[in-house]
């Protein structure tokens, strides 16, 4: 190639830079300007669908797109925690309150809800608050219950003993495989689903203040109530009534294939059960220790990312649009979620499922926010429950060791 040709080529490429740039120039203002912003909402595989109808209605009203994004349940919180500080993440995230840890990390933005919180159920409003400030627009409350296959067991069991007797009879007859399915991690157990059985002995983990909140200075695991639960776990494990090897997929699978009459779970598993055509009933969680079996109460809501680049529209969607009874009712229409808004809840309260969840949740204990207490309790309690179920030691000894570990964990600073 001749020199001049090369020079010509160089000139041509230089020109191409300008040309290329010119070609995309019309796109630049679109990229740079804000007003086309889309409100991005993260939820897990199931929850992200809940806002579908509300999002459409909001888009119809304001012209602003709301994009619902599914992030796996197992990683949604850690993804949010790692991406927000780096400037990523969604504008809003659907997560269960309270949010003490996120507030301490500066990854939740306070929302001024005015008096709107008064229109929500008290427990839902309480879960939105950290130090008296709201960080969430509550969407729905959820607690677990006992789901029964009516074809296998026609009557609701009144106590845990009844449940085990009914389940065992079916297993002995060869009709089913499992007495009851309680989904568990084979290592970490499931302190969330086992909680109502524990509370039915009178141990709520901590002593409670008058308003029902925890007094973190007084763990109650190492009390007679806690030990009674430990002994019961030992019995259930030894008799095989509760197996720590029933994982999440196994539990639901066994229930919808009729291989167990009982499943302890929350509203999130209902769609699969309905789809399988099981004739189910949601029963009151049976008491094992004589007192009321109180499950945890989770409150899901929308949290605003403080680094959102579409903050104004996201806030408008969350604090103005989603606090209305009309929008909250759609949560029920889409995913059978009992709305956190009082007026919306009343509209759907006659639904038998909502009613049944509600009855299970009458005495429910709201999830607690304190990061240190959370860090000290869930892991050791769940692991010890598994160890006792597996018979890896004397239940009382294992339980007392765990109680001491929890007490030590409560003493430590968070970081």
């Amino acid at each position, binding site marked *: 190639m001749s020199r001049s040709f*090369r020079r010509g*080529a160089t000139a*041509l*490429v230089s020109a*191409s*830079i300008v*040309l*290329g*740039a010119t*070609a*995309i120039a019309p796109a630049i203002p679109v*990229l*740079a300007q*804000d*007003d086309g912003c889309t409100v991005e909402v993260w939820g897990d595989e199931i929850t992200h669908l809940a806002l579908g109808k509300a999002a459409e209605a909001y888009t119809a009203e304001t012209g602003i797109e709301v994009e619902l994004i599914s992030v796996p349940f197992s990683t949604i919180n*850690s993804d949010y*925690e*790692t991406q927000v*500080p780096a400037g990523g993440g969604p504008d809003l995230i659907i997560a269960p309150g309270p949010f003490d840890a996120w*507030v*301490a*990390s*500066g*990854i939740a*933005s*306070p*929302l*001024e809800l*005015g*008096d709107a919180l008064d229109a929500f159920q008290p427990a839902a409003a309480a879960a939105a608050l950290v*130090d008296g*400030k709201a960080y969430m627009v509550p969407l729905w409350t959820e607690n677990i219950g006992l789901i029964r296959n009516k074809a296998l067991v026609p009557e609701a069991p009144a106590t845990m003993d009844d449940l085990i007797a009914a389940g065992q009879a079916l297993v002995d007859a060869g009709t089913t495989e499992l007495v009851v399915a309680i989904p568990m991690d*084979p*290592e970490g157990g499931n302190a969330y689903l086992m909680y109502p059985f524990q509370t039915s002995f009178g141990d709520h983990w901590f002593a409670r203040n008058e308003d029902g909140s925890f007094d973190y200075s007084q763990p109650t695991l190492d009390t007679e109530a806690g030990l009674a639960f430990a002994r019961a776990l030992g019995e259930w494990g030894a008799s095989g009534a509760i*197996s720590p*090897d*029933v*994982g999440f997929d*196994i539990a639901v699978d066994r229930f919808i294939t009729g291989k167990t009459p009982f499943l302890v779970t929350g509203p999130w598993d209902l769609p699969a059960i309905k789809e399988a055509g099981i004739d189910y009933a949601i029963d009151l969680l049976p008491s094992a220790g004589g007192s009321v079996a109180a499950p945890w109460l989770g409150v899901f809501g929308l949290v605003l990312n*403080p*680094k959102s680049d*579409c*903050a*104004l*529209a996201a*806030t*408008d969607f969350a*604090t*103005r649009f989603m606090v209305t009874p009309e929008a909250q009712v759609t949560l029920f229409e889409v995913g059978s979620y009992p709305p956190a808004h009082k007026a919306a809840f009343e509209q759907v309260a006659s639904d038998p499922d909502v009613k049944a969840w509600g009855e299970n949740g009458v005495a429910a204990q709201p999830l607690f926010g304190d990061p240190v207490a959370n*860090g000290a309790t869930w*892991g050791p309690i769940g*692991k*010890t429950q598994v*160890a006792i179920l*597996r018979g890896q030691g004397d239940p009382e000894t*294992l339980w007392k*060791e765990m109680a001491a*570990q929890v007490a030590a964990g409560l003493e430590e600073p*968070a*970081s």
Partner: protein
Amino acid sequence: MLQLLLKLLGFAVLNAISVLLVMGFYGAGVWPVALLVVIVTLGLDLLYLGPWAVPLKYLAPGILLLLTFQVFVILYSGFTAFTNAGQGHLGTKQDAIAAIALSGRERVPDSPKYLLAILEGPTGLSFLVTDPDGAALVGDPATPLAPAPDAERNDAGKAVGLPGAEALTFQQILGRQDEILGMEVPIAADPADGVLRTQDGQTAFVFRSVRAYDPALDAVVDSSTGVVYRDNGRGNFAAPDGTQIDPGWRAVVGLDNFARMVREVRESEQFLGVFLWTFVFAILSVAMGFGFGTFLALVFNDPRIRGRRIYRMILILPYAFPVFLSVLIWGGLLNPEFGFINEVLLGGAKIPWLQDPWLARFSVLMVSLWLEFPYWFLIATGALQSIPRDLEEAATIDGAGRRRLFRHVRLPLLLVTVAPLLVSAFAFAFNNFNLVWLLTRGGPIALDSEIDAGATDLLITLTYKLAFDNSVQDYGLASAISATIFMIVAAISILSFRRTRRYEEVF
């Protein structure tokens, strides 16, 4: 000619993308990255358009990828190892200040909720608000709120406009949201009485700052108690009595993370256990995979076996499945109650394959063997076939038996080829996160473990737990462990590669 045109077209596209990136980065305020894109693009253009630096033309793409995906990542995690990055220290100091400003601002108790319209007049943006009694007021950041009797109202009685000013539509508000979200309109001449702010562009509330950052002092001042929280040099604002304000920011803490790691190794048996198990696992996993794979290769290298091709194909199958799929399936097979192995093969035995510490280690090694041997089988088969037949024949004539033939002819020649692969396989096994995480999550975990370390935890899975899986995340400590892993693996690799040169002297 066509080649040249294609080349030019390619560069035009590359340049166009670069221009787009530069605008994007510059627009987002990260000009160093924008500058980097400019330099790299111009560099590439210059390099490939001239007749010069031909070798570099071949090397440049590789070098660029190396810098981006290796060097940068290593340097970044190396840097993180010297910081306190983790829960409560996630962002920059600016982020922390912004978050403290947000949480330090409180709505004035019992103050009304105002309906808001945002107006643009000659002096800029102003707030036109309607209070609960229906009175219209107007103000802007420089002028406190004052009655606006001539406001135009809509049917609901909300003040929506003023003569001489234009009301912004919601779309316009969205377009200027940063400006509007930052606006503070004092409600009275004394700003301490409170300021109006909006979060959604349609309502406004009266806020008062209780805690605010003072740039002159580089400290956060609590105006209700008068306490001054100063930068404590460790990523937090702290009061003289040590109380810290959350959130903090990522700060350099020197060797703290490494010191903590050493302390943990010394004090915690579990950490030491993880450390040792990582070595044991890496060595055994490679040794077993290599041994078994080579054994099978030798067996199937014998021409007397019929249907060798079919056997070989079947043996390679485990290698053909995606690792994570195989491991998850193994996890299911080994479930003590519902797993195929216990329920069907062992007739309902309840052997805790993954729940007992020693059985779990055994199971992890066995699954690793299942995953690894086809690789070594493939490599060894290839290597064996490349060994010159005359060498083997000469050895046989000299009277070497099968064992001697293997030990003194085949194995040394095999090692020439596979020794470097053994070293890299060791490095891989040392960090075999997928296998351990998907099979046992590092468990079973001792009940009294403070760091959640389990019997099968490798250093890398423990690192992951520390960084992402715990209730309290600690990226700094996790990075320090990663850096240590890197150094261990690098040191072992360098040493081994030196040793493997010996084998090459065979030829």
